[in-house]
């Protein structure tokens, strides 16, 4: 069974509270308008639609900003759909927007769960809308089987970035010592991939010892508790902490701070959220990886929009433009300031016409 793939560590699936899951979605549906319409626009220009899990985590909030920026750049009406972790709601909202626009729309979606991608793509094809999916889709669902409407699927491989962060951590420790690792929910694909990257890095650095690895379920709170226990168990032996996402990394930093050791033990995360970048600037974290959700939210729409408006014909594009890995930005103390100034302090400036600029190879399915 394909488990939920969590794009960002920020949103935890409701494992222990699954009995309340349906109620949760219900509650949220009441708390948020399902469809946030930003501005009305001239008929003819396709409506641009982002469908994401929620607006309550920094990752998707930034994604949404990117989408809004792109819509503004092309003068299109912009709609945000929020699934709140409920696949049925996600699919129903998409069908509603397809009906409302008569198919004159482009959709950039982070499907709540892999199986959701198929009915969504089929609905878009039937309505004549153009769609780009990110992160989650079944392995046997391919854009080229739904020409031209299913324009592309974008994902990020966790392996190279998990490895890059481990490398940055090891480098900051001077190439030797003991580390501990905080993993995401064990069944999540990103958690598995990032961990695989960590293991590769460890194999290449025999002087570094993995003291322990614990699952902290993407949560800063749990990471703080695990780190606390490690500080007792391993004490000075801990030279670095590798975390599979930024929230857990920041939790570890706070545990170190309460112990008076923040900045003395290296910590790395992945995701590139603002607080993590700031922590890198302050020297409390050794690095993180920015997926650039701003790019994901805007460029996903830009690719679909270009196809919809006839700028290119998806069916004539090579497969490495149809199912590709995006490029993450590795942030360490060397480039943190530059990244911060360009992407966080100021509104990021992206060239919406450079649609293949970050395509780095066709996705491999095992």
């Amino acid at each position, binding site marked *: 069974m394909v488990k939920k793939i969590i794009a960002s560590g*920020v*949103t*935890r699936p409701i494992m*222990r*509270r699954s009995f*309340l899951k349906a*109620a*949760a979605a219900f*509650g*949220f549906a*009441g*708390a*948020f308008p399902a469809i946030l319409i930003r501005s009305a626009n001239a008929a003819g220009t396709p409506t641009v639609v982002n469908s994401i899990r*929620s*607006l*309550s*985590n*920094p990752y*998707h*909030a930034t994604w949404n900003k990117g989408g809004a920026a792109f819509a503004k750049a092309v003068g299109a009406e912009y709609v945000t759909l929020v699934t709140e972790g409920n696949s049925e709601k996600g699919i129903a909202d998409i069908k509603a927007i397809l009906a409302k626009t008569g198919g004159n729309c482009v959709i950039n979606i982070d499907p709540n769960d892999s199986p959701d991608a198929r009915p969504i793509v089929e609905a878009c094809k039937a309505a004549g809308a153009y769609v780009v999916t990110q992160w989650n889709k079944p392995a046997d669902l391919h854009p080229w089987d739904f020409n031209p409407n299913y324009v592309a699927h974008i994902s990020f491989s966790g392996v190279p970035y998990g490895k890059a962060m481990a490398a940055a951590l090891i480098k900051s420790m001077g190439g030797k010592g003991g580390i501990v690792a905080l*993993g995401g929910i*064990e069944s999540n694909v990103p958690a598995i991939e990032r961990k695989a990257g960590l293991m590769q890095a460890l194999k290449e650095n025999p002087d570094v010892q993995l003291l*322990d*690895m*614990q*699952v902290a379920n993407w*949560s*800063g*709170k*749990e990471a*703080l*508790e*695990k780190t*606390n*226990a*490690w*500080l*007792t*168990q391993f*004490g000075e032996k801990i030279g670095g902490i590798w975390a599979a996402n930024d*929230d857990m990394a*920041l*939790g570890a930093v*706070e545990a170190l*701070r*309460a*112990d008076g050791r923040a900045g003395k033990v290296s910590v790395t995360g992945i995701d590139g*959220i*603002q*607080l993590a970048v*700031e922590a890198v600037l302050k020297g409390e974290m050794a690095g993180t990886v920015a997926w650039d959700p701003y790019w994901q939210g805007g460029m996903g729409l830009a690719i679909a929009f270009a196809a919809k408006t006839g700028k290119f014909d998806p069916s004539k594009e090579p497969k490495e433009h149809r199912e590709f890995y995006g490029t993450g930005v590795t942030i360490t103390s060397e480039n943190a300031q530059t990244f911060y100034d360009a992407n966080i302090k100021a509104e990021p400036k992206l060239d919406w016409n450079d649609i293949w600029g970050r395509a780095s190879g066709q996705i491999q399915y095992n």
Partner: protein
Amino acid sequence: MTTPIEQITKRQPQPKRIRRWRVATWAPLMVLVLLCIIVTFINPNFLSFGNLVRITQSAMIPLVLGIGATFIVLMGSIDLSVEGVVTLSAVILSMLVLNGANSNNLGVLAVPIVLFIGSAVGFINGLVHVRLKVPSFMTTLGTWFIALGAANALLGGMSTRINDPFIRGLAVVRFMGFPWGVWLALFCLLLALIIQNYTRLGRYIYALGGGEDLAALSGISTFTVRIATFTLAGAFYAVGGILAAAQLGLGNAQIGTGWLFTTITAVVVGGTSLAGGQGGVLQTLVGVLIVGVLSNGMVLMGVPSSVQIGVQGLMIIAAVALSIDRKLNRIVK
């Protein structure tokens, strides 16, 4: 007073001492001690001062939340709004004190505001529960999401870094070796003990837990007691929110996630009956420590992550099974 009653001196057999030594009352404490012994045996570092401080640090938030929840559970109700109130309090606090997102700098003044907001959510819980006769389970489920939604709306999904030295100090600055947050939690415990043992509200909470009709028949305004108790619990959750924000150094819409489970577990494991009427905040302290020592100890003992959550589940069942006095459940006529 002339007391003809005192003339009644007939048939005075020895007082029957039916009181028996009840394992149930002491089971949680014994479990805690046993747990400490086992963990120490496997990893003597457990008893180091540094680790004790770390356990108290991780226990301070569940303790404060558990205190609030204990009062609710004693009444025979349940409160699911813990995470909502914690999140809302932490988010509002992070926006009022010196922070990385706006220019507010209310400092300590933000604390009463946050306490007020927590109490207000609790008050609404009580009012809806009592006036509209909505079961507390559903009422607080609703306010949980309303409070979460409000927190989302306020922050738009971003995290706010807290730079206020007083708030951060709760987690970082120490007094006699323990962070100030731990002392704050202990102060809350003291306050709760006074409320529980020395105020009418405390007594009436037990009476309500013993039976709603019975309390009413004793002349207690059950509506007022219920509303007051939910309000009180809301205030404690707000303190929990402040501590959570202090500990992570930020406020965001996820900060409350997971606390409901921990809180209810601690209350129940401590021996407060979900049926109401039995238990108290000291029991919850024991429950919090059991949960804290167990999760700390499992890492110290090198228990695999995948097993840990299962062990926690087993512990809940075991603790509740130990606390229930089956002999009491016989029907006595």
